[in-house]
Structure formats: structure tokens, C-alpha cells
């Protein structure tokens, strides 16, 4: 029985990841629009809502809305970015590229792994860029750069987990158009009915209950805990450790559920 060794598997994943990333470099519009959109959200929300919300934040982030908003926008960015996973997979399926890959003596896992990893790299780039733009318009990490970096890592891990959700949805939807539309169905309620843009305390209680307990808010709160420090912990009345543990639980839980689902959908889509 011929098998692919672990080293070869890693090598194949690398080749596919590079191939997927190349597309972003050769088609710079992709990265441009993926960056312009969150930047636009950041500016719009900051200048439109900043005035009215800033006051209700007390000493959170020094009372500056941008400090509250940026961690939220980072989460929005990685979650929206995850839709690229379903888009890329369905485009490759439609173009026959995946049949070619599957006829080669390469690791079967490389297609999905290479896709999600490339999207992780791309998200990292956009995320760092967002922080830079944030700094230009007044954002300041309140609790040091180490915690800021840790916050970015948690955000990106969550984006990576969401890539597997989007892979599952995309492979179910089969065509790029359907995948795009279907992917945003769960995303909109998760991102907007959350603490991403505004504190949940102003929402009606039924909505606040959902918003406070769904993963996007939990992750956004963890990021804020790391970036804004103690005033935010007092604001949401919990501890940083709790938030980080909850975040990791969500990330691991999502991967545990959606990784095998995506693999199953992939097998079904290609045969």
C-alpha cells in the first residue's frame, strides 16, 4: 500500500497554500477590496456612531469609541474573510482544478488544508493592516503590545475556525454564487446581533441574551479584555481568564464540529 508520508503531506499543503496565496498577489484587487471594506466600516462606524456611543462607555478605552470599535471590526474582518474559503473551494471545484489535484499522488488533505491556511495568511495581513489604520485615526492599545498581539492571535484563530464553517457551507452550496449568498446567512446575525459595534446593554433583553452568548460577542469581548484592560472587564462584569477560556472553547468546539463535516462534504462534492 502506497501512502503519503507526513513530510510529503506538509510539503503538499505548502504548495497548495502558496498557489492559493499567489492569486491574491496576482489579483491585487482581491486584497484591496478585502481591505477597503473593513477600513470603510471602521471609519463609518467611528465617525457616525462614535459621538453618541462614546459617552456611554465611561472609562472604557478612555471613553474613545475607536478603542471599543477596533477589536470588534477585527472580528468582523476575520469572519467576513472566512467566506473566501467557500468561494475559493467552489471556484476550484467548478474549474476542474480539484479533479486534477485528486488525480495526483498527493495528500488528500492538502486541498482543504491549503485553502484554509492561505485564507488564514490573508486574514493576518488584512488584520495587521486594520490595526495600523486604527492607530492612524486614534486607536491605542491600552494594555500593552503583547496583549494586543495575543488578541490578534485569538481573533485569527477564530477566523480559521470560521473558515471550516464556510468550507462546509460552500461545499454544500456547490456553486460560488450560492456559496457566497449562503455564507452570509449565518454571518449577518452573528456579526450584527453582537457586541461588535455597540454594547449589548442597550438591546432588548431577548436579543441581548442571544448577543451576549454567541461566539462572535464572546471573542470580541475577549479581544477587548486584552486590548482595553480592566475598565472593560468591569464594564462587562467578568474576568479576562473566563473570556479567553470561553473563546478557546468556542474555537475548538467549532473546529471539532466543522472540520469533519467539511471533510465529509468535500468527499461528497468531489465524487
Amino acid at each position, binding site marked *: 500500500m502506497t501512502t*503519503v508520508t507526513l513530510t510529503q503531506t506538509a*510539503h503538499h499543503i505548502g*504548495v497548495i497554500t502558496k498557489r492559493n496565496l499567489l492569486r491574491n498577489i496576482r489579483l491585487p484587487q482581491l486584497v484591496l477590496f478585502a481591505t477597503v471594506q473593513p477600513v470603510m466600516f471602521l471609519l463609518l462606524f467611528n465617525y457616525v456612531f462614535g459621538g453618541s456611543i462614546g459617552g456611554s462607555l465611561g472609562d472604557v478605552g478612555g471613553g474613545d469609541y475607536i478603542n471599543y470599535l477596533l477589536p470588534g471590526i477585527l472580528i468582523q474582518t476575520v469572519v467576513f474573510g472566512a467566506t473566501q474559503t467557500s468561494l475559493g473551494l467552489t471556484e476550484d471545484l467548478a474549474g*476542474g482544478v480539484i479533479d*486534477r489535484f*485528486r*488525480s*495526483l*499522488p498527493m495528500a488528500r488533505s492538502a486541498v482543504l488544508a491549503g485553502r484554509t491556511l492561505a485564507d488564514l495568511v490573508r486574514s493576518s495581513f488584512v488584520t495587521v493592516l486594520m490595526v495600523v489604520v486604527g492607530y492612524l485615526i486614534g486607536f491605542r492599545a491600552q494594555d500593552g503590545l503583547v496583549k494586543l498581539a495575543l488578541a490578534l492571535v485569538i481573533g485569527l484563530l477564530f477566523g480559521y475556525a470560521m473558515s471550516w464553517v464556510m468550507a462546509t457551507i460552500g461545499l454544500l452550496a456547490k456553486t460560488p454564487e450560492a456559496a457566497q449568498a449562503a455564507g452570509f446567512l449565518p454571518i449577518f446575525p452573528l456579526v450584527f446581533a453582537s457586541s461588535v459595534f455597540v454594547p449589548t446593554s442597550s438591546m432588548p433583553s431577548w436579543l441581548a441574551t442571544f448577543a451576549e452568548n454567541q461566539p462572535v460577542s464572546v471573542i470580541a469581548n475577549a479581544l477587548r479584555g486584552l486590548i482595553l484592560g480592566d475598565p472593560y472587564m468591569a464594564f462587562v462584569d467578568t474576568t479576562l481568564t473566563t473570556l479567553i477560556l470561553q473563546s478557546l472553547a468556542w474555537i475548538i468546539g467549532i473546529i471539532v464540529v466543522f472540520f469533519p463535516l467539511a471533510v465529509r462534504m468535500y468527499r461528497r462534492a*468531489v465524487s
Partner: protein
Amino acid sequence: MTQPIVEAEDIVQTFSNGVRALNGVSLSFEPGIIYGLLGPNGAGKTTLIRVLTTLLRPDSGSARVAGVDVLANPAAARERIGLAGQYAAVDEYQTGRENIIMVGRLYNLSSREARSRADEILERIHLTDAANRPVKTYSGGMRRRLDLAASVVGRPQVLFLDEPTTGIDPRSRQDLWELITDLVDDGTTLLLTTQYLEEADRLATRIGVIDEGDLIAEGTPNELKDRIGGDVIELHLANDQLATAAAALATMAGEEPKIDLMRHSVTIPAPQAARTLVEAVRQLDQSGLDIHDVALRRPTLDDVFLTLTGHRAETTPAPAPSERGRRGRRRRADRS
């Protein structure tokens, strides 16, 4: 006898929507030849290729390619095969050269080996000049050539080409045919599917005719043509006169004439060539029928298909009788 290089036995494949794509297909052939799998759209050609190239696990049956059991050891099979599917599966945003290098790397070639292999192949498919341009600037024919190149990177023992020339212009098709013939000169065995009779006739050493999931005939192009005897006469009339004409010709033909409403024609065997032709024309004239066109010709694979299945192989409509060639003897109508 040489050991067969491709051997499929009783392959059955039913899709989840209940469609039975393969009905127990068996075929085998020896190394070094081009085997042409001929059939209309939806006949099961692609499904059979997908089974033989490990992309699809059949419901039942067995398959060996290059001495490897495809179902038991697909990974080993993949090291010995190459596949170019129906779509040119090349990456738009990479250059031609990068595409080939990538495939080489996936065959576990070192970066240097992959680069020199790419240069060698690009030269062979005459793409050296365009090698460093992104594929999105390529024409359809160039993409197909590049796709073909990608499928031979791993020096496969058996190369599978699924409709390699579908949808490309006649000139590029000629180029591809030359490339494909080159590959067999190299010792590679080839299985290609096509719905173009001309292509199968021109390239294949042996042809398997597939229709609705069954392999219904097999042989060399000439054997298949001989199945329906020698020359045939094709008489073109208005559609409402075809039945009358067939009845008028039945006695002299010694068998039921074949009516083709789409081509407005009735076909009979011509054991005595020109003499049968004169006789046929006289018969129809006496019956007061109006002949639009008449041709005496060697049977084409299209005739074979019609004889075997009762319907034509190609889905494209035949040209109107007035546009058809008037040469008395021609090997086939030019429909490519």
C-alpha cells in the same frame, strides 16, 4: 499476449439521483496504443475515466491500471497515471511555467527538478514563448495544451484524456492531435474519450463504443466499419418522402433501409457500388420521388453508431443537404 495495461471488469456506477451511469462495463487493452472511447454526451465516458483515475469509487466491479488495483491501492495508481479532464484545469493567475512547476512539486519533484521538467515539457508543447505569461492571457487552445502538459509531468504510464479537443477551434485541434500522437510515440498508453467520430477514427488504434452506460462494440476503426459491410449509398429527399423511398428501395437493398429524419436521408448498402447507385436512383425516379442529393461512400463511424444503437453519435445537427459535399466518394462529411 502482452499483459493488458488497462483492465476494467464489470464496472457499475449508479449516482445518488438514481441515474445508472455505467451498466457493468468491461474493457481491456494492451500498452502503447491509443484507445478511443466513443460515445455521445451522457453515455458514461467521463464516469468510466473518473473510476479508472481513482476519482470515483464504483458500486461494483474491479479495475487495474499499469498493474495496480485502482480500488485497493489508489495512491499507487495515481503515481502511474495522468489525467486531463474536460476543463482545462490550469490556474489563471499563475504563468504557464508556474502551473507546470506546481504540478511537478505535487509529484514530489525537488524545486530544481520541477523547473527543468517544466522547461522540457513547455518546449515540447511549443509554449516556451508564452511560458512566463499568466494563463489568463492564453487562448483556449493554449490552455488545453498546457493542461495536456500538466498531465504528463509525472511521466505517466497511462494517460487519460477526457474529450481533449471539445470546444476548441479546428486549427488548435490539429495541433493537439499531433501532440497526442507524439505522446504515444514516447511509449505512453492513452485512453481518450471523444464524441467526435473523426477524432476517434484519426487517433485511435482501438475504439470502444459506449452508449447509455454500456460498451456496445469494440474493435479497430476498420473492423467497426466492416461490421456494416462495404460502401453505402445515402439518398437525400424531403422528409415526407423518406418512408416511401425506403419502401421502394427495400427489395433491391435486401434489408430495411435506414431512415435519418435529421439528415433527411435514407441509407442502403451498395454491394455493387456505382451499379447499385444507378439502380437506386432509377427506383426512386420510377416512384416519382424527388432526390435532392445522393452520395456513394465508405461507411463512417457515424453509420456504425446508427447501426448499433439506432441513433446518431453526435448531438450537433447535421448540415442541410444542400450544403453537403457532392463528391461521390468521401470518407465523411466535414462536420468538425
